[in-house]
């Protein structure tokens, strides 16, 4: 990846919500995000043959495993969009999940129409309320999940998996 070498911190990652159209997105950061956990584990099929005694594998399907922890808020548009989409069975959000800001060349992540799943809302008496959402990539007529790379001058490049 291009860009300079430095230690990336979690707080610099961004979760962006598209409030425009898929082809001409307006990306707005959900600023109340606290923690994000990002993973892409692949399912493997056995591709072994007699050519070698070593088992061979081929990736067949990837399962985007993304969870976000967000401070609960009655008026923040980003949190409310996640919460409302989590409450409605068919609702999805066009989100970009990046490991750095869109101004940082070299930041990368994914874009998809995600179905938020509310897996927990801690309401302990001594704590500030946070919600944990699991984001599952869903089907949408606009497009399938894409890899996102941030280039020079915040140019976003989308690549198929």
């Amino acid at each position: 990846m291009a860009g300079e070498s430095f230690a990336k911190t979690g707080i610099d990652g961004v979760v962006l919500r598209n409030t425009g159209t898929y082809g001409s997105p307006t990306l707005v950061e959900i600023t109340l995000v606290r923690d994000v956990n990002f993973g892409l584990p692949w399912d493997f099929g056995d591709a072994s043959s007699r050519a070698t005694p070593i088992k061979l594998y081929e990736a067949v399907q990837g399962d985007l495993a993304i969870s976000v922890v967000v401070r609960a808020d009655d008026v923040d548009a980003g949190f409310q969009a996640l919460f409302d989409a989590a409450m409605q069975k068919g609702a999805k959000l066009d989100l970009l999940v990046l490991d750095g800001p869109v101004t940082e060349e070299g930041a990368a992540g994914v874009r998809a129409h995600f179905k938020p799943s509310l897996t927990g809302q801690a309401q302990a008496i001594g704590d500030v309320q946070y919600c944990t959402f699991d984001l599952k990539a869903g089907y949408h007529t606009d497009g399938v999940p894409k890899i996102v790379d941030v280039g020079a001058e915040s140019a976003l490049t989308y690549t198929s998996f």
Partner: protein
Amino acid sequence: MPQARIIEVCDAVVAAVLAEWAALRGSPVAAPDECVREYVVPVGPEEIGLLTGRKVWVAPGGYGGENASRGEDQDQHTVAVIVAERYPDGSKPPREWTDERVVFVERLTDLLGNYKPTRDPGPLLVGNPPRRHWTERSQVGVYDWAYLDEHHCFWSELEFEFRGVR
């Protein structure tokens, strides 16, 4: 000149104490009683004998913070409060007189020690535009034995930690 946030918290505490005290008295707080923000305690041990009225001094303790989310910080502000009152004629105060001051301190603690964002009594509103703060911790020294015994002065030291997200 804009105030430091810890000073804004102290000023909000002073306003809250004055309102609660006025409600208890049935009239606004007037000299020689007072509640003010101070950096140093105005009365040293050698001047205790000159103290008149009930004093409530509010001072900044310390502050810190942590990330509440990627776009917000959670501030933590510690405020020190001293309630001081010398028995009027300087003699040893009767127990009932001291009891009344202990009740006063408890009333202040019930207010300052229980701010919540939405539940009663509501938040401590700090600054302009107002920011909601809640009480995270309170600690009360009921009275100081030495001040009461040697100077016949009721002296109570309290500490509160307030938190807010900005």
